[in-house]
């Protein structure tokens, strides 16, 4: 006889997974059926209204062509006929006035099919969660341009809770029976597990959700396999032994899984879809292909991925180099033993780190303004020509780098200061006795001591700079013509500023993540090897 508790535990895990799959299938099927029914209803109602008949339960109206308003000619007015009389369509006159007005305007913007002087209309589900569908068709009644029908709201279909509870009970009974009837080798117990979990595939079959059915059956098989390899037993005992540690870890781990791992997976998946005008379509590797091939654009086109990648690398290298150079120089200056007012200098040099970086970015944007910017005023007062900073690539890119250098060097300075403090004075004294030159002292004493802390700081700093969104987005905003964008700002623009191409943005994000992963794995190795050498 196999352990009944263990058997039920494994059933619970499998059932939870199967239930999740079945529920997703239920939601998908329900939405699909609902959408089909609503679209069908609104289409029939709109076609009926087009010839002047109203169907019960569906709100349908005839709409006139737009005429310029008497008071404000730029506003276009429409009139509607709702079965009784013609009246103007104005905000608030009608429960769905705004909806109808927008739908009519969209109709006017649709392309005409070949051979027709007008569009054939459209039918779609509203994306506001009410389950309403709207259909617009050209009208055949005199005086009316088109007919619009809006279906009433429908409540979502109820979840078949009782059926699910019944099936779970049946499954539990089956799995327990399997355990009780099982001999020493536990073959009957495995069969019980498979049957018990497979019970949940029944509703999936009824909903004709074949993918879900297959997945549930696979889960059943996988759990049974895990059982016979004693994987489930071992995991369970591991959890029991480390339950205190796990319970301490859970409060942070669970939200991280939900809000970092889940978006991450979703982001990976979205990269395989294309989003256009509110609808998603699976396109496979197309987005990645388009990005990595440069989308057929020339290499110096600011929208070409490789161009942006080049700019990003240049941006990262330039910034980190300046951060380290300035930070280390300042740290060396500040570590002179005879220097007075060290604390004050240190406080002042840390200032850029304390200012919120979006404010820094906006301040510098103002300073680079070609007309009222302080920098051009400064140049002016020295008798130099003012520069139109954001109209050429070189000056625009420099503006970004200057801003980011200003806000980023204090971190490196503080890290370097910390490292310099750890160098024992005796080493320098010994070097002085041996007659070492200042350069030799720097090269053979200071630098090796800086490396262990500067290495990780550079790795971290390069990742921060690679992802420095705020500076690029707020200072140059990609000007001129998007040529100073870096990868993260360009990905953002695909999602939120170029017609909601979410799929492209997600593919971009995936590629960026890949680059960073390679950099952290190999970059970290390079840094570490250098440490070992020194």
């Amino acid at each position, binding site marked *: 006889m196999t352990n009944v508790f263990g058997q039920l535990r494994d059933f619970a895990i499998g059932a939870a997974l199967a239930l999740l799959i079945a529920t997703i299938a239920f939601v998908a099927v329900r939405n699909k059926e609902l959408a089909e029914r609503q679209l069908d209803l609104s289409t029939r109602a709109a076609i009926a209204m087009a010839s002047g008949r109203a169907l019960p339960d569906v709100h349908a109206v005839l709409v006139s062509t737009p005429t310029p308003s008497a008071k404000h000619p730029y506003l276009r007015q429409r009139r509607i006929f709702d079965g009784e009389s013609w009246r103007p369509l104005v905000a608030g006159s009608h429960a769905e006035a705004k909806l109808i007005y927008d739908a009519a305007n969209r109709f006017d913007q649709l392309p005409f099919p070949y051979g027709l002087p007008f569009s054939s209309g459209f039918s779609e589900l509203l994306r506001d969660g009410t389950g309403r569908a709207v259909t617009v068709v050209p009208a055949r009644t005199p005086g009316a341009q088109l007919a619009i029908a809006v279906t009433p709201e429908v409540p979502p279909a109820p979840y078949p809770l009782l059926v699910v509870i019944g099936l779970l009970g049946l499954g539990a009974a089956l799995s327990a029976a399997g355990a009780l009837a099982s001999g020493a080798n536990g073959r009957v117990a495995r069969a019980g597990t498979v049957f018990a979990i497979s019970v949940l595939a029944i509703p999936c079959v009824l909903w004709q959700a074949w993918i879900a059915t297959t997945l549930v059956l696979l889960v059943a098989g996988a759990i049974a396999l895990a059982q016979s390899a004693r994987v489930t037993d071992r995991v369970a005992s*591991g959890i029991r032994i480390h339950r205190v*540690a*796990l319970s*301490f*870890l859970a*409060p*942070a781990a669970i*939200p*991280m899984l939900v*809000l*970092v791992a*889940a*978006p991450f997976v*979703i982001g990976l998946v*979205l990269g395989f879809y294309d989003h256009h005008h509110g609808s998603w379509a699976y396109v496979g590797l197309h987005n990645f292909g388009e990005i990595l091939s440069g989308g057929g654009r020339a290499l110096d086109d600011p929208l070409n991925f490789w161009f942006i990648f080049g700019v990003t690398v240049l941006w990262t290298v330039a910034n980190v180099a300046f951060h380290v150079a300035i930070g280390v120089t*300042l740290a060396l*200056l500040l570590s002179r*033993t*005879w220097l007075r007012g060290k604390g004050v*200098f240190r*406080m002042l*040099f*840390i*200032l850029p780190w*304390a200012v*919120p970086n*979006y*404010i820094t970015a*906006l*301040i510098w944007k*103002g*300073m680079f*303004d070609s007309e*009222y*910017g*302080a920098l051009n*005023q400064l140049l*002016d007062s020295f008798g130099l020509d003012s520069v139109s900073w954001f109209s050429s690539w070189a000056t625009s890119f420099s503006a970004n780098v200057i801003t980011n250098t*200003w806000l980023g060097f204090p*971190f490196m300075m503080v*890290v370097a200061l*910390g490292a310099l403090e750890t160098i024992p004075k005796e080493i*320098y*004294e010994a070097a*002085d006795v041996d007659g070492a030159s200042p350069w030799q002292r720097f090269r053979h004493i200071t630098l090796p001591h800086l490396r262990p802390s500067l290495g*990780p*700081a550079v790795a971290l700093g390069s*990742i921060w700079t*690679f*992802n420095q*969104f705020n500076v690029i*987005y*707020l200072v140059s905003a990609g000007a001129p013509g998007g040529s100073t964008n870096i990868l*993260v700002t360009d*990905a953002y623009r695909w*999602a939120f500023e170029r017609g909601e191409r979410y799929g492209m943005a*997600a593919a971009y*994000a995936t590629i*960026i*993540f890949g680059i960073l992963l390679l950099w952290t794995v190999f970059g970290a190795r390079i840094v570490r090897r250098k440490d070992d050498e020194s």
Partner: protein
Amino acid sequence: MRSQRPRLILTILTYAALIVLVAVVLYPVLLVCKKAFEPGRQFAISASPIPTDLTLDHFGELFTTRGGNGELLFLRHALNSIIVALLTTVVGVSLSCTAAYALSRFRFPGRKTGLTMFLVVQMFPATLLLLPLYVILNKLNLLNSISGLVLVYSTTAIPFCVWTLKGYFDSLPRELEEAARIDGASPWMIFRKIILPLSRPALAVTGLFSFMTAWNEFIMASTFMTNQTRYTLPVLIQSTVTEFSADWGLFAAGAVVTSLPVMIAFYVLQKYLVGGLTAGAVKG
């Protein structure tokens, strides 16, 4: 000799270099302070950081502008920011302190992986998660909601908090805990009665960091909050200087009011910030 006074010329050069660099560092900040108290909407009439004319009009405008529903906008946004930042602090710190303790004191399979994960996630650009988070928050009806923003910010803050707190817990002696265990205290009691009271400084630093994360964050707030009454301060401040209408006076006043509190807090606690970050990077 190094400790002796070097040649005069070197001294003068060093001080000159430091003073020039201080001027470069201070200049933008002084310009903004000047702009906040100087009339006019343009960024600069002259390059001098000393105002020629003093006024409090920008602050007046900032504090008295009303939104569509008659609300005082700045106070509304400041309140939003304070609520979001405080909630983020509470949620972020309380969730991460137990995890940091587990990672510091217990040995269990997957501990190293967990630590590395917390580090890698810290390097994750928030912009990459923006789009999926937007889709998820939209589905959960959490766009334009304070709780949505708090959730997102807390998860951004957790990895850093975990690393910093773990570093601090590592430095606490274990004898106290062992003594308590012999006396029969449960792990939870040890954590609550011994570890937490000893860790007040570390909790303060991680709290400050969580607060600053939420207080300074701009892009998520401006993407997730489209309703003006839900804006946080960064979104408000950015909206004063858009491409089409820029009021740099208003911007400067807002920037001064928003930055001062975090700058003060930063100066008080700055020495702990670097330690936490690089310790995490070195050990990972």
